[in-house]
Structures are given as structure tokens and as C-alpha cells.
């Protein structure tokens, strides 16, 4: 990487820094805006908050961590990580199909036979 290339990078870092500051303030401001679709339903606010965080994260990853110009093997490693990360975050979605501890579960629990009394 030449001296001029680095100078160009430094200019980009400053611009990204400014963008991150603005986006941080925007995140805080957005948290005070009422995006509720219904009382107590925070989906709108969560979407906006996480969307801004994702933009900030993408700026850090692509510019500071140079993921906008990296070798193939790193993209493969990260691609695989994203797959497992998505699975990991999807686990709570299975919450509804889990009957353990469900007090509305009408069927009585199975009796354990052969136990000592």
C-alpha cells in the first residue's frame, strides 16, 4: 500500500468517524420517538434502533476492519459464522413450541412408574 493510498484511507476514517457520531446521536434521538404500532408493542422502535446499529456496525467492519477489500478465505470464515450466528439468534423463535414449564399445558404430566413410595 503506497503512502498516497494510506492518506486516502485516513480521509475515509475521518468521514466514517463523523458518520458514526451522527448515527449515535440519531440512535438516541430515535429511542425517544414513538414508533409504537400499538400500546406496549415496540416492534417499530426495535427495528429502527437495530437498523441504525447495523449501519454503524457495517461502517466499522467495512472501513476500520477493511472488510470491503479482503481475501476470499476471510469471507468464507465469516460467511460460515453468519450462518451459525443466525441459527443461534433464531433459537428463541422456537420458544412457542416449547411446552416445558407451560402452565396452560392441559395434559397432566406422565406418571413415573416403578418408583419407591
Amino acid at each position, binding site marked *: 500500500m503506497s503512502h498516497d493510498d494510506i492518506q486516502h484511507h485516513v480521509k475515509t476514517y475521518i468521514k466514517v468517524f463523523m458518520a*458514526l457520531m451522527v448515527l449515535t446521536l440519531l440512535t438516541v434521538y430515535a429511542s425517544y420517538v414513538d414508533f409504537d404500532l400499538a400500546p406496549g408493542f415496540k416492534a417499530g422502535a426495535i427495528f429502527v434502533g*437495530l437498523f441504525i446499529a447495523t449501519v454503524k456496525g457495517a461502517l*466499522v467492519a467495512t472501513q476500520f476492519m477493511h472488510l470491503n477489500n479482503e481475501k476470499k478465505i476471510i469471507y468464507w*470464515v465469516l460467511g460460515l459464522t453468519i450462518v451459525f450466528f443466525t441459527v443461534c439468534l433464531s433459537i428463541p423463535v422456537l420458544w412457542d413450541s416449547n411446552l416445558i414449564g407451560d402452565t396452560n399445558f392441559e395434559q397432566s404430566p406422565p406418571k413415573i412408574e416403578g418408583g419407591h413410595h
Partner: protein
Amino acid sequence: MQIPYNEELRPDTGLYNAKLGIWIFLASEVMLFGGLFSAYIMLRVGAPVWPPLGTAQLNIPMATFNTVVLITSSVTMVMAWASLKMNNFGKFKMYMGLTLLFSAMFLVVKYFEYSAKLSHGFTPAHDTFLAIYYTMTGLHVLHIIGGMLVNGYLWMPGSKMWESNPERFTNRIEVAGLYWHFVDLVWIFLFPSLYLL
């Protein structure tokens, strides 16, 4: 025996070994924090009210200040690497020193935040929100401390390598920087998840 591919690029990966190593480590870190984010979602969707009634009120101005401090430290870190690339060791010292200063500032603010909660009896055992709050931010703080130890070493005693092997030292700073930006990245998601939403 000398460890190969410290400076020159390995032909099959196109990278020096430490760079591939840190990315694989960061991938494992994504899963570590991913597990905790998954637990956070699980607790949140399972709670009738979130955050639970009677829990601590988190300090948004303090956390916003800390977000600014951590992002700034990420910029000074990448500027430290860029300074070495431009053969300016003096500027590297300055930017790395600033990175350490901002890291320390983050910890001081976190100390005041934690102590204010704990002094009012808001311990991790108080409710599920505080349990996940302390777990996630506590793990993040441990990562900050770990990063500070490495950056502190590279700032002072480790910087002697610049005289004997400048290219290898620059690579070390790049690898330490990748870790530091990751720690910043985690905070970027922790901040809205725990404090704002």
C-alpha cells in the same frame, strides 16, 4: 524454530498467518456474544413486561458518552496503524496512547455506572434484565481490559520491535486493531439493545 509467514504472505491464503488467526478467533467471539444475545432475546420474549417492573433505570447519557468514547478509540487505533504504514512512529505512539486513554475512560464511566446500581441493591440477582445486563456488559468489559493489556504492551515494551522488524510490528498493530474494532462493534449493538429499546 521461526514461526513462518509473519510478514510475507502465505501463498494459499494470501494472508500473513496472524491475520487469518485473529479472524478465526473473532468468528468464535461472534458465537460467544451470539449465545448471550440469543439468551437476551429469550428472556425478553418470555417476560410479560420488559424491562421488568422495579428494575434499575439505566443511565442513557453515560452510555451515550461511552459509545462516543469507544468509537473514538477505534478511530485512534486505526490511525495508529496508518501512522506506522506511513513510517511515522511518533504519531503511532500518540494515537496508541490516545486509544489507551479512551479505553481507560470507558472503564471509569462503567465503574461509576456499576457502583451506582450496586449501591442501590440492583445486583445481577435482582431480576432477569439486570442478570443479562451485567453478564453482557461484564463480558464486554473483560474484553476491553484484555485489549488494553495487549495495546499497552504494544505501546511500550513491545514497540521495540519497530526498530528490528517494522513490517512484523505493523502487522501486530493491525491484528490488535481488528480485535479492538470488534470490541467496538459489540458495544454498538449492546448500547441500543440494553439501554434504548
